[in-house]
């Protein structure tokens, strides 16, 4: 499992626009980089990222080989209710890593 850093404010007011920041450790190997013997390192990238807020899809992104290693996303959601934000990253082998964070709305 790759290490991910999720930054969600713990307590917010209802209706606030909340900034969410997520950073995941991943090499994002493009498949175009040769090793010292001239053979290409096999491609290994995260191809998608999605965020749901209490089950509702609020943000998603497609990733491509040109995205840097350790992809970082910053986006905003409107705080509607106390709930769970679920973040998921899917790689080339269709393996998904999931991380969750609680958000408390007053």
């Amino acid at each position, binding site marked *: 499992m790759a*290490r991910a*850093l999720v*930054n969600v404010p713990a307590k917010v007011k209802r209706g606030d626009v909340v900034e969410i*920041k997520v*950073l995941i*450790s991943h*090499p*994002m190997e493009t498949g175009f980089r040769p090793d010292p013997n001239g053979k290409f390192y096999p491609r290994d990238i995260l191809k998608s990222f999605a965020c749901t807020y209490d089950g509702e899809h609020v943000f998603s992104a497609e990733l491509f080989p040109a995205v*840097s*290693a*350790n992809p*970082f996303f*910053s986006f905003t959601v409107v705080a509607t209710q106390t709930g769970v934000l679920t973040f998921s990253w899917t790689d080339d082998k269709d393996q998904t890593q999931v991380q969750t964070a609680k958000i408390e709305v007053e």
Partner: protein
Amino acid sequence: MNPAARIGGLALIAMLGAFAARAQIADADRKSGAAFMSAQTQEMQRDDGANPGMLAALDGESLWNARTGGAGKSCADCHGEAQTGMKGVAARYPAFNEASAAPIDLQGRINLCRQDQQKATPLAPESRDLLALSAFIGLQSRGMPTAPPDDPRLTPFRERGRALWSQRMGQLNFSCAQCHDDNWGKHLGSAPIPQAHANAYPIYRLEWQGMGLLQRRLRNCMSGVRAQAFPYGAQEFVELELFLAERARGMPVETPGVRP
């Protein structure tokens, strides 16, 4: 000589004049490498949620608490909580090692601990685990002033480092000082020339798409001037590190830094 060549010659003389202009940077003029970065990259370093070096530091924290080697001991078993036990430690390395009667840098110390205390194999230079542990230990000194030890036994080594700093090398025949003392703030191609203070290592370098230690950066500069780079762990590097620590004395530690 045609007029164009004469103008070229004059420009060359003017350039050489500029090269001889400055020597050592005054304390008040010292700037961290971060000051030469774009606002976005500075923000990336400042924000722990966006700084990829923090991923390495978190890996380092797990390694700190993991038991390993023949002795089955973790770093924490001897040193306790890194947050207290390692506070300020990275800021005072390289330090003198009694056993080898020579200075060692933080990575040398980590590997000595692994060999002698944990009975484990030393970590390879620039390996993921060594970078992670260095980032985690360095993080405990973040914000503290660089404080190289006032140990007279270090002096001859530091002086050798100082000599290396102004030693011309490589096919381009440049010394470190010619760029970083005499011409900092100007540009090399599109890249600004920083003052080369080593107060943020290990760094996450965007160009590398990963973490690296000071020796990797020094080797980078050496191949830049087309010199044969010293091997990792070479005594010369530790001597240069000693001199660089003295040169950055008092500057706050930024580990884990982000650099372009």
